[in-house]
C-alpha cells in the first residue's frame, strides 16, 4: 500500500483519504436537483456531461454529525456498482502518497466513523482516515433500516 496515490479531503472537519484510483475526476458542482423523500445524505442528482451523478453529502452519509461544516464547490466523482456519485466534502486538499499500511488506532474511530473507515493511513501530508467507499455510499445504518421499514 505504500506509495499509493491518495486524494486528501476534509469530511466533517476530519482529514480523510480516498484512493486516487477510485476518484474519476474532480468537478465543479453545478445545480443539484434535490430528490424528495430520499435519505438526507443524498443531496440530489447533478449532470456531468451526459451523465447523471448522485450527489452524496459525505458529512451526513457517515452518520449524525454535530456542527456545521463548510462545503467545497468541487466534488470528487467516484464510481461504485455501476453508478457514479459526486461526493460533497468540506474541502478537497491535495493528492499525496501513502507511507504505510492502513491500520487501526487504539480506541477505534467511534461507531459512525468505524463503519466507513478502512483504517488510519500515514501519508506524506500526515495521518488520514482511509475511507471505505462502498460503506460510505451505503449510507448510515440507522437511516437505511428506517427506509427499509417504510418500503
Amino acid at each position, binding site marked *: 500500500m505504500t506509495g499509493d496515490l491518495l486524494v486528501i479531503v476534509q469530511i466533517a472537519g476530519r482529514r480523510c483519504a480516498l484512493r486516487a484510483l477510485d476518484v474519476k475526476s474532480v468537478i465543479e458542482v453545478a*445545480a443539484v*436537483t*434535490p*430528490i*424528495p*423523500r*430520499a*435519505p438526507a445524505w*443524498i443531496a440530489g*442528482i*447533478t*449532470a456531468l*456531461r*451526459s*451523465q*447523471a451523478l*448522485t450527489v452524496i453529502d459525505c458529512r451526513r452519509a457517515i452518520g449524525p454529525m454535530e456542527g456545521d461544516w463548510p462545503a467545497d464547490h468541487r466534488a470528487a466523482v467516484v464510481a461504485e*456498482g*455501476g*453508478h457514479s*456519485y459526486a461526493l460533497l466534502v468540506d474541502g478537497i486538499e491535495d493528492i499525496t502518497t501513502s507511507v504505510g499500511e492502513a491500520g487501526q488506532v487504539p480506541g477505534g474511530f467511534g461507531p459512525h466513523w468505524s463503519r466507513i473507515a478502512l483504517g488510519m493511513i500515514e501519508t506524506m501530508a500526515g495521518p488520514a482516515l482511509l475511507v471505505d467507499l462502498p460503506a460510505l*455510499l*451505503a*449510507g448510515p445504518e440507522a437511516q*437505511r433500516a428506517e*427506509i*427499509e421499514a417504510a*418500503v
Partner: protein
Amino acid sequence: MDDLLADFIAETREMLEASGGELVAWEADPTDRARLDAIFRFVHTVKGNCGFFDFPRLANLSHAAEDALADCRAGRRDPDSRLVTAVLAVIDRIVLMIDTIEAGEPLDTLGPESADDVLIDALDVSRETGLDTGGETGSVGLEETCEGSDPPLHAPAADLLNAGDEPAAPARRSDSHSAGAAPATSGQRTIRLPVELLDRVMSGVSDMVLARNDLAHRLRQAGNQPTIDGPFERLTTILSDVRDAITRMRMQRIETLFSALPRLVRDLSAELGKQVMIDLDGGDVELDREMIETIRDPLTHLIRNAIDHGIEAPSARLARGKREIGLLSIAARQSGNTISIVISDDGRGLDEERIAAKAVATGLITEAERAAMPRDKLLNLIFEPGFSTAETVSNVSGRGVGLDVVRQNLEKVGGSIAVRSHPGEATLFRLQIPLTLSIIAGLTVEVAGHRFAIPQSYVEEIVQASAAALDFTRMGETALITFRGNRVPCLMLGAVLGLDEADLVPAEPTLVMLRLASGDLFALAVEGIHNHGDLVVKPLAPAVMRSGLYAGSTLLDDGQPVLLLDVANIAARHQLLAEARTRVFVPHAESHATGDGATARAMLFTDYAGRRAAVRLELVQRIETAPVAAIGRTAARARVVIDGVILPLIGLPDAPLTSPRVRLLRLSDGACELLYAVREVEDAVELTEALTPVPEDPLAEAMTLIGGAPVTLIDAHALFALHGEPPQAAERPRCILPEGEWARAILAPLITAAGYDIVPAGEHDPKAVGILFEDVYEVAEALGRPLPERVIRLRDQPDAPAGCTTIYRYDRDALMAALAEASRAATRNPAAGEAA
C-alpha cells in the same frame, strides 16, 4: 402462422443447441437431477408448443417423454441407462420431425405413426402400474430394436429411427436441394451479433443524444450562428436516424408477442371446453428483442394456467353469477427501467387453503410458518419449485413446471413476478422486466419548483379544469375527482413527494390521468406541464431507488437532470392498484349530466394567421403533432395522415411551413373528423364572458373575452359544414359490372369513386344497378335470362344509332348521369323498373 411456425422451429432448435450439453451430461450420469430438470423442461416446452400448432405426433412423443421424466422427478422411477436411451431416441426423433416441418413436408414422410409408438413404448410410461411392470415391457421394446447395437447410448436411437422408417433420411437430404426447402435457407440475410456489442453501441448513441442536447442548449445561448446551425441541424437529423435504427435493432413491439396470443387462447379454451375472451392492451410498448424471447414462455405458461385452472367452465361461471365468457386481460406498460405486464383473469381465483395445505404437505413451510403468513405471501408460494395445485394433470398446463420456470426465467434477467388474487373473483399476475437502458417518451411536469418526468405510456390524458368542474371531493384522506362520469382517485404529487405538506388543492389543478397496467385509472395533480419528448433513462443509485418513488433519471435539453417517477410503485403505495378491473365508481346520474349550470369550456390557441382563437372543448378529441412530411397539399384541400388515416386539414398558412412539425387540433363532430393546424396551443379555458356574435365572419361563432383579451370562438357548425369529410354512407348503392379486364381495371374505379359498391362476381343482388355491354344485354334478353331491375347499357362506338338508349363506354358524363338517375329511381321507388 408461418412466422409462428418459424419461431417454433427456431426456438426448438435453440433449446436443443442449449441442452445438447445437458443431454450428454445426463447420459454420463442419469441420476443428475439438474440435467434431468433441464431436459424435462425441453420436452415440456415442445409439448406445449406443438399443442397449439396441431402436430399430434410431435405432441404424443414429447408428452410420453415428459411423463417418463416426470416419474423420475417425482421419484416414482429411477432414471437408468435404458430410460436415457429411450428419451434420447425421442429427442432425436423430435429433431427429425422439426427438420421435416421446416422443409414444409408432411410428417408422414417420416414413416407411419406406428414408428413413433415403438419409441413411446420404449419409454415405457405406465403411471398406473408404476415401476415393476415397467421394466419388462421397456426391455422388450428396446431389445426388439436395439439388436446388434453396442453401448454408446446414442446408437440405439439412430437404429430405432432407421428401423422405423428407412426413407426418412434420404428424403430429407434430397429435399434440401429441392425448391421446397429453398425458403428455409434463403431468407433475409442476417448476421448474429453479441448483445453486449449492441448494448455498447446503444449506450454510446444515447450519450450522443444527450451531448447533442447539451450542444443545442449552448448554441441557443450563444445566439444565431448560421455557419454552425446548418451542420448542427444535419447532425441532429443524422443522429435521430441512427438512434431510430439502433433502437429498432434491439427493440420490438410487444405486439409481436401478443399477436400469437388470441389464437393460443382460442385453441386452449376450445380444448378445455371454456369460453374465454382475451383483451390485449399496450401492444405498442417496445421491448428488447431478447427480452421478448425471455418472456414468451412465461407468458404462455401463465395464460395456460389462467385458462386451465383460473377460468371456470361456462356452467360453473353462470352458477356463480358471472358472465359465461371469462375475461383474460393482458396489458403491458413501460415505466422507466421496467416493463410491467399484468395478466389477469376473472376466474375462480387462487385457493389460499389449498395452497397452504399443499405447501405444508410438500414441506415448503411448516404449520407454524403458515399460521403467521399473510395471504399475499402465501399465494406467492406457487412460484416455488415443484408446486402445483391442479389435482388433475391435463395436457394443457402440465404439472407445476410452469410457475417455477416462469419465475426462474424472469429472475435470470433481473425481473420478478408476483401474484394477487381474490377468491372467486380474480387472479392477477404482475411481471416486472427490467430495461437497463432505454429511450422512452415522457412528459415533464412541475410541482413546487421541482421537475419530474412521467413515462408517456401511462398518460391517458391531461385535464386542466377548475376544481368545481372536476367535482373535486375528499373522502377521508382520499381525494376523488369525476372524470368522464367516473369517480377517480386523485393524488397530489406535491404531497406524495413530501414537497407540499399543506396538501391544498389549487383552484385550477392540472391533472395527469394515468392508466396503470392493471387498467386502474388515477389522477396525479401537478402544478404545470412542461413538454414531452424522448428521454434517455438512466438507472439511479440503489439508495435512491429504495425510496420507491423513482424509476430512473434523465437529462432535459438544458442539461438539468430530472427524476422519472415510478408511477406503478407510487400507485401501489397508495393502494390504488385494484386486484381486478372491477373498481369503477359511477357517480349518481345527476352529477353526470352536463346541465346548463356547467360553464362551457374551450381550447385556446393561436392560429397561423396570428389570431387568438378558441374552439369548444367538446370538439377537441386530441392534440396531435405531425411532421410536415405527413401533410399532402396536392388537392385543393390539404390532408394529413395521422395514425394511418387520411384526414382533412385546415388552418395552414399559404407560405411553406418553416418548422419540421405542426401542432394540430383533432376535432370531431362524432361522425367526421378534421384537423386544425395551430401555431400554438395555449390552454383549456372556461367561457365565462358574454359571447358577441360576429355575423361578418362565417367561420366565427362569436367573439368573447378570455383573460381580458378578445378571442374568436370558432363556429363548429360552419367548420364541419365546409370542411368536414362526409362520413361514408352506411349503405352505399351497389352496382353490377360487366365481366372482363376493362370493367375491372377502368370502369370499376370510376364507379367506386361515384359512391357505388361493386357487387362481387357470383353474388346476386336484385337491387343493384347493372351495367352491361349492349351485345351481352341483347343476348340475355333474347334468351330470357334474369336481368337486374335497372340496367345501364354500354356500347363500344362513340356514335349511337338513332333511338338507342345505350351510352358510349367512355362518355363519363352520360354514365354518371345514368348512375345518378338509377340511384334516384331506386330511392324514390325501390321496386321501379328499368332506368336506362
